[in-house]
C-alpha cells in the first residue's frame, strides 16, 4: 500500500528523486527528508541503539531526533557519520546507510547484548574488568571500545571547502517559526538590520504542520508565504535557512552554522559546503520553540512509536501517513491535533489513551465529536512488537496498532538563553523551566512557555489551532522502570536512573555522568526533563530542587571544518618570508620554520648531504666570505630625547655613553632576572637607536618595551617603532668580506681604523641608502648591510655577481657562532638562565642602580653555587658529535635515576676545527674546566672534557681585522 496521502504537504509530487538506503533503492519527492521518504515506503526501522542494539524507528521530525542516525557518503572522501535522517534532505543519488549494526539493521548480532542486559546496568564497567590487570589494555578495553561509538569516522581527507563570515546586526532572530517571523517583521519595520535564521530547510517552524489554522483571515500557509515575501523584500533583512544558531559567546556573539550544499545533488563547486557566521547582535530574539517529550513506559522505543507532533509533521508537511492503525498515548492536548489530522487523512485511530482523568479542551471535544475513541485516565504501560510495534498495552488491555504516538507535553528549548547565562525559573503549570528576563536578549514563543500559537503571534488574529495544554514528565504512573527508555540513543532507562540514585548519585550532573543520560548526540533534548522528574520523584523532592544540567554549546553538532573554515595549509598560519626568500628557493635552499618565518637552513649543491653543505658553507666563511639573509632578526627603532636613558633601564649594560656610530651587544632580562632576549644595538644619532632582537622575540620585546615605556616610565620621551619588515639585512662575513662589498659602497670609509668592529655608518650601497653595521656573529670580519626591504633582492643579486660570496644558511650560522661561543637565546637559554650563568656577568653595568631584572639577580637561588653555567665540551673521540639535549653526569656507573648535572645545548661537527664541539650548561661548570664528565647514551657512555666555551679565535683577532 502507499503511505502517501492523496494530496497536501510541501513536497513536489510532480517529480521523483531516487536515493538508496542500506543498499536498496527508493524514490521520494523533492522536499522530502530521508525519514519522510522512507516512511512513505512504510520503512520505520532506521537505526540501532548504542548499548543494547535495540531496533529503532524515528522518534521526532527535527534536530532533536535520537534514533534515526545515518551515514551519508557523497563519494570522494565526502562521508559524514551520525547525521539525523530527519534533517537529511533527499537529492537524486543520495546514498545513506544505517549505523551500529552487524550485518544489517533487520538482523544485528549486537542485539545479543540484550540477553545479558540485566548484568549491564548503568556504570557496570566501573565495577568489573579489573582482573587481571593486564587484561584491561589487551582485552576488556578494546572490546568496550569496539562496542561503543556509533558511526564510522571518515578515513580520507575531506575535499570540501568551508568559509567563515562575520556580521553585525541590531536584531538577530533565532528560529523562523511563527513567533520569530512576527518578531522579525516588527524589527524590520524600524529599518534596523535584522537577521533571521532557522535550522530547517524552510521557514515556518510549527506553522508548517498546521492544517486548519487561520491567521489574519488567511490559511496559515498563505500567511506564511506573505510574511516571508515581505521579509525577503526588505534590504535590511537577511534570511538564513538551514542555519543553526549553535552557540552563544560573550557580548552577544552568536555562532551560526549554515549548511550550504549538503542538500544539493550537484552543488556549484564554488560554494562552500558549510559556512560559519559569527554574528554580533545588539539584541538577540530567541524563538527556538519547544521539543515534545516522550512518555516513559516499558518498550517505548519500538519502531513505529513516535512523538505525536512528529507524526503530525510527517502528515502535514510531507504528506506521509506514519501508520494505518494508530494508537495515541498522551498527557497533552496537542496529540489531539495529530489525531484529528490523521483521522481526516483516513488513518484509523484505534485508541487515544489520555493519562489525565478529565482532560478538557477544544481538541478533546473535537476528537470526541469526530467519533475517535478517547479514553481518559488511561496509562500506557507497554508495547508489543519486534522490528515494528504491533500493539499498545494499557494495563492488561492490548490494543493492536502499527504506529503508537505519544506526547508528554512540550519542553521549551532553553539552550541559547541558558548558554548566555540567562537565569531560569521553574513553571509548575507547564512543568517546565522557563527563561527569565536577561539584558540584551528576549525569549518569545514556545521557548518562553507560550505554547499556544495565538500567544506566539501578538497583533495577529489566530483561529483554528489547538493549544497544547497538559504536561507529564517522568515514568508513567503504574508502569515498570525496566526497559522504559528515557535517553533513547544511549539506552538509559528509568531503572538506570533509579539505580544511580540508589548508589548515591543524587546531583543531576552525577546522574547524567553515571548513567550517560543526556550525553548522546541529541544531548538530551527529548530526555532531560523526564530524567529530572524520575530522579526528583525517587529523592522525594521537586524538579527545580534537583536542578538542570548546564547547557553548553553547540545546540546541535557542528562540523569541525565549518569552525576551521579556510584555515588550512598556507592559510593555517601566515607564512613570513624574508626579502631574499625567492632567491634562496631558486638556489635550492632547504628551509626551516622559525616562529612563523621560513628561513633558509642550508644551500645544498647537487648531490650534497646536509652535513657536506654545512661544512662547505662554514669553510667558505672562515676562508673567504659568505653571504647570509639576516632579515628575520627583529628590529625596533627607538627614538626620542630620552632614548638612551630608556635603553639604559631596559638592558643590563650601560648605554648613556655609547657614541653615535657605535654599536653594542645588549642583554635584556625579564623582571624575574632571566635572559629574555639579546641583540646588537646601534646609535644612529643622539636621539635614535637601531635595536635588533632575536627572530622569534621581536614582538615580545616590543611589547615588553612598550609596557615599561607606557606604564612604568611614562615620563620618558621615547617612541618605539617596529621596523623588522622595513629592512632587508644582508650579512657578509669572512676575511674577504670587506673586499666583497667595497666596490658597491659609497660614502663610507671601510678601512679598519675608520670603521672599526661594532660600529655603523650611513651611506649607500649600489646607490641604495644603507645602514651598514660592522658586526659579526661568526667571529670573522663581518658586515650587516641594512637596505630598504624592497631593494634587498637587487643588492643581494649585485653582491652575488662578484662570484666570491658563498650563500650560507642558519645551520652554518649556528655552527660558526658556536665555534666562537656566542649564545643563542632559546637554545643556550630556556627562560631559567641568568647572565652570570652564561658567563656574561661582565654585561651587567656595576654602575647602574637599577634596570629591569636587576633586583631579581640578588635572590638567594640566583646566587647559588650549584647554578648551571655555560661551558664547552670536547668529546674524547673527536668524531663523536653529542646529541643536543643529551644529559651530563659525573658518575656514569650510578644506578637510575641518575643525578644529572647539566645538558648539551648545542653540538656540531666543526669543519674548521676538524672535530666535534659542544656547548653545555653544567652545574658549577666554570669550576669544572679541565674535568672529565660523562654523557650516558643508549648503548654507550661518552666521555667529555669540560673546556671554556670559545673554541675558535678566543682573542677575537679576526673580528678586528
Amino acid at each position, binding site marked *: 500500500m502507499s503511505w502517501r496521502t492523496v494530496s497536501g504537504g510541501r513536497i513536489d509530487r510532480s517529480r521523483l528523486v531516487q536515493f538508496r538506503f542500506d543498499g536498496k533503492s527508493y524514490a521520494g519527492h523533492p522536499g522530502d527528508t530521508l525519514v519522510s521518504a522512507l516512511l512513505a515506503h512504510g520503512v520505520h526501522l532506521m537505526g540501532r541503539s548504542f548499548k543494547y542494539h535495540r531496533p529503532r524507528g524515528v522518534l521526532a521530525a527535527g534536530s532533536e531526533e535520537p534514533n534515526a542516525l545515518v551515514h551519508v557518503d557523497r563519494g570522494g572522501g565526502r562521508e559524514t*557519520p551520525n547525521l539525523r535522517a530527519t534533517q537529511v534532505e533527499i537529492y537524486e543519488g543520495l546514498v545513506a546507510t544505517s549505523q551500529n549494526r552487524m550485518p544489517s539493521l533487520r538482523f544485528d548480532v549486537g542485539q545479543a547484548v540484550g540477553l545479558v542486559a540485566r548484568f549491564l546496568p548503568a556504570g557496570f564497567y566501573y565495577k568489573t574488568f579489573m582482573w587481571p590487570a593486564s587484561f584491561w589494555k589487551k582485552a576488556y578495553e578494546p572490546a568496550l571500545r569496539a562496542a561503543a561509538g556509533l558511526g564510522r569516522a571518515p578515513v580520507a581527507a575531506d575535499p570540501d571547502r568551508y568559509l567563515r563570515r562575520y556580521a553585525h546586526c541590531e536584531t538577530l532572530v533565532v528560529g523562523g517559526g511563527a513567533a520569530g517571523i512576527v518578531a522579525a517583521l516588527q524589527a524590520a519595520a524600524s529599518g534596523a538590520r535584522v537577521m533571521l535564521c532557522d535550522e530547517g530547510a524552510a521557514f515556518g517552524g510549527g506553522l508548517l504542520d498546521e492544517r486548519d489554522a487561520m491567521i489574519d483571515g488567511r490559511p496559515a500557509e498563505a500567511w506564511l508565504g506573505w510574511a516571508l515575501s515581505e521579509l525577503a523584500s526588505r534590504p535590511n533583512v537577511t534570511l538564513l535557512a538551514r542555519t543553526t544558531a549553535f552557540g552563544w559567546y*560573550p557580548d552577544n556573539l552568536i555562532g551560526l552554522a549554515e549548511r550550504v550544499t549538503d542538500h544539493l545533488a550537484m552543488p556549484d563547486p564554488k560554494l562552500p559546503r558549510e559556512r560559519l557566521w559569527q554574528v554580533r547582535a545588539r539584541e538577540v530574539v530567541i524563538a527556538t520553540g519547544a521539543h515534545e517529550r516522550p512518555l516513559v513506559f516499558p518498550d517505548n522505543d519500538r519502531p513505529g512509536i513516535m512523538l505525536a507532533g512528529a507524526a503530525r509533521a510527517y502528515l502535514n508537511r510531507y504528506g506521509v501517513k506514519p501508520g494505518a492503525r494508530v494508537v495515541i498515548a498522551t498527557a497533552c492536548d496537542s496529540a489531539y491535533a495529530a489525531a484529528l489530522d490523521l483521522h481526516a487523512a483516513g488513518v484509523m485511530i484505534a485508541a487515544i489513551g489520555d493519562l489525565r482523568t478529565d482532560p478538557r479542551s477544544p481538541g478533546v471535544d473535537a476528537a470526541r465529536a469526530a467519533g475517535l475513541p478517547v479514553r481518559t485516565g488511561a496509562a500506557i504501560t507497554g508495547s508489543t512488537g519486534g522490528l515494528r510495534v504491533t500493539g499498545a498495552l494499557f494495563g492488561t488491555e492490548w490494543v493492536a496498532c502499527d504506529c503508537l504516538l505519544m506526547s508528554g507535553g512540550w519542553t521549551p528549548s532553553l539552550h541559547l538563553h541558558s548558554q548566555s547565562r540567562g537565569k531560569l525559573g521553574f513553571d509548575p503549570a507547564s512543568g517546565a523551566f522557563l527563561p527569565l528576563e536577561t539584558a540584551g536578549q528576549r525569549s518569545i514563543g514556545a521557548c518562553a512557555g507560550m505554547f499556544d500559537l495565538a500567544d506566539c503571534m501578538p497583533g495577529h488574529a489566530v483561529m483554528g489551532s489547538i493549544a497544547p495544554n497538559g504536561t507529564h514528565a517522568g515514568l508513567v504512573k503504574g508502569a515498570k522502570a525496566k526497559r522504559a527508555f528515557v535517553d533513547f540513543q544511549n539506552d538509559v532507562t528509568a531503572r538506570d536512573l533509579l539505580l544511580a540514585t540508589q548508589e548515591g548519585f*543524587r546531583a543531576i550532573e552525577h546522574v547524567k555522568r553515571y548513567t550517560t543520560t543526556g550525553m548522546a548526540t541529541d544531548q538530551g533534548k527529548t530526555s532531560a526533563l523526564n530524567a529530572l522528574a524520575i530522579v526528583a520523584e525517587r529523592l522525594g523532592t521537586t524538579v527545580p530542587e534537583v536542578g538542570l544540567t548546564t547547557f553548553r554549546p553547540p545546540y546541535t553538532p557542528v562540523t569541525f571544518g565549518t*569552525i576551521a573554515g579556510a584555515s*588550512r595549509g598556507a592559510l*593555517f598560519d601566515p607564512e613570513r618570508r624574508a626579502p631574499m626568500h625567492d632567491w634562496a628557493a631558486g638556489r635550492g635552499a632547504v628551509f626551516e620554520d622559525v616562529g612563523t618565518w621560513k628561513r633558509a637552513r642550508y644551500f645544498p649543491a647537487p648531490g650534497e648531504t646536509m652535513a657536506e653543505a654545512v661544512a662547505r658553507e662554514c669553510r667558505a666563511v672562515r676562508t673567504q666570505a659568505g653571504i647570509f639573509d639576516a632579515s628575520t632578526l627583529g628590529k625596533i627603532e627607538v627614538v626620542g630625547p630620552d632614548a638612551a636613558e630608556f635603553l639604559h633601564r631596559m638592558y643590563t649594560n650601560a648605554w648613556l655613553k655609547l657614541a653615535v656610530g657605535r654599536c653594542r651587544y645588549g642583554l635584556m632580562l625579564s623582571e624575574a632576572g632571566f635572559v629574555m632576549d639579546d641583540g646588537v644595538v646601534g646609535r644612529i644619532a643622539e636621539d635614535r637607536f637601531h635595536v635588533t632582537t632575536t627572530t622569534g622575540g621581536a614582538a615580545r620585546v616590543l611589547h615588553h618595551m612598550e609596557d615599561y615605556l607606557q606604564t612604568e616610565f611614562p615620563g620618558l620621551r621615547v617612541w618605539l617603532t617596529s621596523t623588522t619588515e622595513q629592512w632587508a639585512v644582508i650579512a657578509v662575513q669572512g676575511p674577504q668580506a670587506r673586499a666583497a662589498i667595497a666596490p658597491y659602497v659609497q660614502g663610507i670609509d671601510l678601512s679598519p681604523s675608520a670603521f672599526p668592529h661594532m660600529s655603523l655608518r650611513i651611506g649607500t650601497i649600489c646607490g641604495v641608502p644603507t645602514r651598514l653595521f660592522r658586526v659579526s656573529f661568526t667571529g670573522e670580519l663581518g658586515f650587516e648591510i641594512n637596505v630598504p626591504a624592497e631593494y634587498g633582492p637587487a643588492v643581494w643579486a649585485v653582491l652575488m655577481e662578484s662570484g666570491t660570496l658563498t650563500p650560507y644558511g642558519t645551520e652554518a650560522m649556528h655552527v660558526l657562532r658556536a665555534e666562537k661561543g656566542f649564545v643563542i637565546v632559546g637554545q643556550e637559554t*630556556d627562560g631559567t638562565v641568568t647572565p652570570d650563568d652564561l658567563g656574561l656577568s661582565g654585561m651587567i653595568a656595576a654602575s647602574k642602580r637599577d634596570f629591569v631584572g636587576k633586583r631579581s639577580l640578588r635572590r*638567594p637561588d640566583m646566587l647559588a653555587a650549584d647554578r648551571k653555567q655555560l661551558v664547552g665540551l670536547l668529546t674524547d673521540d673527536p668524531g663523536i658529535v653529542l646529541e*643536543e639535549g643529551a644529559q651530563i653526569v659525573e658518575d656514569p656507573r650510578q644506578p637510575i*635515576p641518575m643525578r644529572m648535572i647539566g645538558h648539551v645545548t648545542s653540538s656540531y661537527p666543526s669543519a674548521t676545527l676538524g672535530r666535534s664541539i659542544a656547548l653545555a650548561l653544567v652545574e658549577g661548570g666554570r669550576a669544572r674546566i679541565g674535568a672529565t664528565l660523562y654523557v650516558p647514551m643508549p648503548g654507550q657512555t661518552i666521555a667529555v672534557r669540560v673546556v671554556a666555551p670559545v673554541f675558535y679565535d678566543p682573542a677575537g683577532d679576526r673580528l678586528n681585522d
Partner: protein
Amino acid sequence: MKFSLRTLLTQGLAGHSGWPEQWRSPEPKAAYDVIIVGGGGHGLATAYYLAAEHRVRNVAVLEKGWLGGGNTGRNTTIIRSNYLWDESAAIYEHALKLWEGLSRELNYNVMYSARGVMMLAHTVHDAQVFKRHVHANRLNGIDNEWLTPEEAKDFCPPLNIGTDVRYPIVGAALQRRGGTARHDAVAWGYARGASALGVDIIQNCEVIGIDRDAAGAVTGVETTRGRIGAGKVGVVAAGHTSVLMGMAGVRMPLESYPLQALVSEPVKPVFPCVVMSNTIHAYISQSDKGELVIGAGTDAYTSYSQAGGLHIAEHTLDAICEMFPMFRRMRMLRSWGGIVDVTPDRSPIIGLTPVPGLFVNCGWGTGGFKATPGSGHVFAATIAQGRPHPIAAPFTLERFRTGRLIDEAAAAAVAH
C-alpha cells in the same frame, strides 16, 4: 560491597536492589582533625590517602557543589610523566605509578588506559627540546622515546606526516605508559574508598571563611552549613584557591584562566593514542565511548566564568583539521570550560603556608588531572606529618621568594 564480576552477576540476578550508596553523605560533625576544602580528584585522593596510609580518619571533604564538578570532570584526561625537570618528573612519575595500580587499589575501574602519549615536533627547535626531555627522562627511569615521522605514523595511522601542511611533523616523543583514564570514576572511586575508611564527604557545603585563633593558627572553617572546627585545613580548590586563601589573609602567586575543551560525536575506534602538539596547539584522543576528545587553549584573560570565546575552539579545530584532514567532517558535540589556576612557573604549589595548620595544594594549571593520585598521596603525607613529603618539598610557596622556580614552560622555550 566489593565490586567484582561476581557481585555484578549476583546483583544482576537480584535486580540490582542490593547496591549500596557508593559513598555516605552524612551531616557535618562539629569538628574534624583534618578538613579538606575541595571535593575534586586531588582533594578526595588526599582524604583517601590520609585515611588509608596515615590512619587519619576523622576527616571531612567539603565540596561547594558536587564531587568532581570542577576540573576533574572538565579535562581531557591525559596522563603522562615525561616532564623535563627532576622535580616535576618525580611527582608525575609518582602519580603514574599509582595510576597503574589505581583500579585495584580502589576496587573501582578508573579505566586507566596506557595507550601512549605522543608529542609532535614541528621544528628543529621542537626536536631539540623533546630530545632533551627524552634524554632526561631516560636517566630518570621514565619511558619516553624519540620517533621519526614514519615511526610516529606507524603508531598513530591517522597522522599526516606529509609536507603539504604548514608545519610538517619532524618527529615525535612517545611515552608508551602515558594514556588516559575515566575522569569521573577517579573522583567517585576515591570518594568511595575514603568514605569506606570513615571520611565524611559533604557536598553542597561552601567554605565562606577560615577561622584562626589569637596566634593565627587555623581552628576551623565557616561554611554555608555552619561552622566546622578543624585542627588542620587543606585547601585543594584549583581555580578558587586565591579566593579561599584570601580568607586566611594569604596572597597567592596564582591566576585563574578559562580552559576550554570539546568532544566530537562518538564514532567507532579510529584514533589509537593521545597526540599533543604544543606548537600548533592541538591535543586529541578518543574516549572509550568513541568521542574524539580535544583540548583547546586558555582564554587570554583571567575568569571564573567556565566559558570562553568561540575563537579558542576555532584555533584548536584549525589545528586538528590541519593535522587530521579526515576529521574535518566530524562534528563538535559538546564544548565546555574549566578554571585552571596557573602559577608563574607553571608548576604546582604543594605544602605548608604562612598560617599554622593551613596547607595548600594548587597551581596545577592545565595539567592537574594526570597528577591526581600523586598529588593526593604526597599532600596527605604533608598534612599528616606537618612537613613536606620529599617529592613535594621543591614545590613550596617559598620558591617564589628564593627564585628556585621549576619552570616547565620555560623548558619548552619559544624558538630563537
